[in-house]
């Protein structure tokens, strides 16, 4: 045990001496959580739109005022003819054009029927889709309002409650995702690189001829990074609560425990990568370039997993961040306990064991 601690101490010296790296390691998650926490949201708001108002009457101008007043739209341009729409789109800034026909008000009140045309720039299909929905809803509101004068019989009212996130804040969805992403990538990369570096420099050989078991050598390398990660977990949680105002509704102990478990999964993955990589460059490519996009895209925080085609839904199960993301949402935001997330917890623990066993086995083969 004493030998083990002297190894751990040596690792700490490495990290401590390289102040620049340590600063980056501890500072990076902080900066990223703050930037992404504020800036990333799947909400679509302040979208610039153009209006082609051929009617210029009371009804059209009321609708236009309401569109402009909503947080979703910002009227940027008034167009005068249909071909101008295309020009506006091509200039790039306008996301949607709304066209009112001539005699809009008159049609609406006398013929009881009028038309509005929404033209969306669907080169970003998500924005186009959401904006069409928002515009439809605002116009629908207007229509309902002009109709409230005649009270209708047989009315079904719907009362809606937004659970967990009544203000519909984007951060509630993104903060758990960003936590998963930052922890996974930082831990995996650090462990992978630090071990491969020793391999490259030849110091690994020296440690392996020491009387300590190779497994312990490897674990000793991971311990300081685990502690660094715990500091990161603490700073991330503090920022989430006090800066991003995402509450911890569940047990904080459970949340920290799950985060440490997730960190261990990442460290084990890093170990596994290090056994396969021969140079720091390869280790970095595998742990960043290969992990980054799948983590972002398959863990569920950017794109709903249930929308994916079946093969991808299956693949997404091997992405550790997916399970952690789900755990954080349950504990932090829904305020639930282990009873709900035991399955996810078991899966993460299983992944950790799997990566670790595989890493140790590969490591032994290399030695033999």
């Amino acid at each position, binding site marked *: 045990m004493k030998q083990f601690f002297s190894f751990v101490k040596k690792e700490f010296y490495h990290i401590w001496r390289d102040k620049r790296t340590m600063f980056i390691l501890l500072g990076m998650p902080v900066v990223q959580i703050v930037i992404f926490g504020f*800036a990333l*949201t799947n909400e679509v708001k302040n979208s610039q739109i153009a209006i082609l108002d051929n009617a210029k009457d009371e009804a059209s101008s009321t609708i236009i005022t309401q569109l402009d007043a909503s947080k979703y739209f910002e009227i940027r341009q008034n167009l005068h003819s249909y071909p101008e729409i295309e020009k506006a789109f091509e200039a790039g800034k306008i996301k949607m054009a709304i066209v009112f026909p001539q005699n809009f008000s008159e049609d609406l009140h006398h013929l009881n029927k009028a038309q*509005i045309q929404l033209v*969306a720039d669907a080169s970003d299909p998500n924005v186009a889709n959401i904006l069409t929905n928002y515009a439809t809803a605002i116009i629908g509101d207007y229509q309902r309002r002009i109709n409230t004068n005649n009270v209708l*019989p047989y009315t079904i009212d719907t009362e809606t409650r937004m659970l*967990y996130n009544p203000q*519909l804040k984007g951060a509630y969805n993104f903060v758990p995702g960003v936590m998963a992403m930052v922890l996974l990538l930082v831990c995996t990369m650090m462990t992978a690189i630090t071990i491969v570096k020793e391999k490259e420099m030849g110091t690994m050989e020296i440690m392996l001829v020491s009387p300590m078991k190779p497994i312990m050598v490897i674990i000793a390398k991971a311990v300081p990074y685990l502690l660094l990660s715990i500091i990161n977990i603490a700073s991330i949680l503090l920022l989430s609560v006090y800066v991003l105002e995402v509450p911890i509704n569940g047990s904080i102990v459970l949340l920290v425990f799950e985060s440490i478990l997730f960190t261990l999964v990442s460290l084990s993955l890093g170990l596994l990568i290090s056994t396969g990589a021969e140079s*720091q460059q390869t280790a970095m490519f595998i742990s960043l370039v290969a992990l980054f996009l799948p983590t*972002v895209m398959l863990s569920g925080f950017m794109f709903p997993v249930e929308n994916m085609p079946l093969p991808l839904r299956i693949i997404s199960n091997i992405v550790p961040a997916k399970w952690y993301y789900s755990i954080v949402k349950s504990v932090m935001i829904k305020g639930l306990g282990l009873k709900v997330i035991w399955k996810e917890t078991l899966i993460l623990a299983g992944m950790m064991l799997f990566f670790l066993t595989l890493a140790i086995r590969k490591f032994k083969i290399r030695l033999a």
Partner: protein
Amino acid sequence: MRTLKFLLQKEFRQIFRDPSILRVIFIMPVIQLMILPWAADYEIKNIKLSVVDHDHSEYSRKLINKITASGYFELADYSNSYKQALHKVEHDEADLMLEIPTSFEKDVVKENKAKLFMALNAINGVKANLGGAYLRTIIQDYNQEIRLEWLQMPRMNIEPTIQITSSNWYNPLLNYKYFMVPGILVILLTMIGSNLAAINIVKEKEIGTIEQINVTPVKKYHFLLGKLVPFWILGMVVLTLGLFISWAVYGIIPLGSYLTIYAFAAVYLLTVLGLGLLISTYAGTQQQAMLISFFLMMIFILMGGLYTSIDSMPHWAQIITKFNPVSYFIDVMRMVVLKGSGFWDVRYHFIIMFTFATVFNGWAIWHYRKTS
């Protein structure tokens, strides 16, 4: 020029001598480009619905039928216990629950007014918002049907209605892949380029060979150019590979010209590589270089406008994106591929990217010291 030839020869040899890196550079983007775009679908559909029906009436059944027939909702659970439904929401087995009170049918018919209760998992605010809106629309339609059953037809037409027609230009079928595939290609290109360049000079620093180069009469810009050109060529090959997959797998052919894409990519790669080299001249170890480049890449990529809309970001974040090369390339890709924009339409993008390239590379050359 002759010096440059030898520097290039050496860099190329080193690149091709390490097959593991080469494999990663070429195979990884191909695999990711073939798999990941299928995951990108923001559309709100398959909303899992848990119904708590206390009424068990003809009307409640009809309502549920109408909801499930709409195609947006999937009936995940049907019970008469609020607790069970909430349980489903907690376990993420349901996104939305609809509670139908005991006297629903009676209230509609006799009291002229009935109330439904809906609760949504709002962690994903947009999904909750749209899901709720869909459900309310269906309920209103249903409401209308009931009225039609009880009232005379003509009376209903008196109400003024606004018909909304919507059209989606440039991508009428709202095919997410048209948008996602070129975007992911940009991201892969960025990650590969910046990582390769960021590591390279530091690696020579760590091994010690840079000392030997510094004592030769090789000019600073020759040395950096020798590093830049091979990666630039690799980047263009990856781009070509990516565009080929876009066409072969996803059938994406740019409306605009490939030439515009290549021309922009040429300048863009100079920017990304220049940034990498700049990081490399500052970093002391490969580890530092990787961390810094990774840190910047994550910000560039996630704030590049591919995953979330830049307009929705707070003002300060929008200013950051003005300095984000990724957002310009994604914009250009979108314009050229889907809108058919030509060189003239993206001239400002070109000018800005060219400025970036000049600044980063100039800075790297200036900061790289042969003599301490």
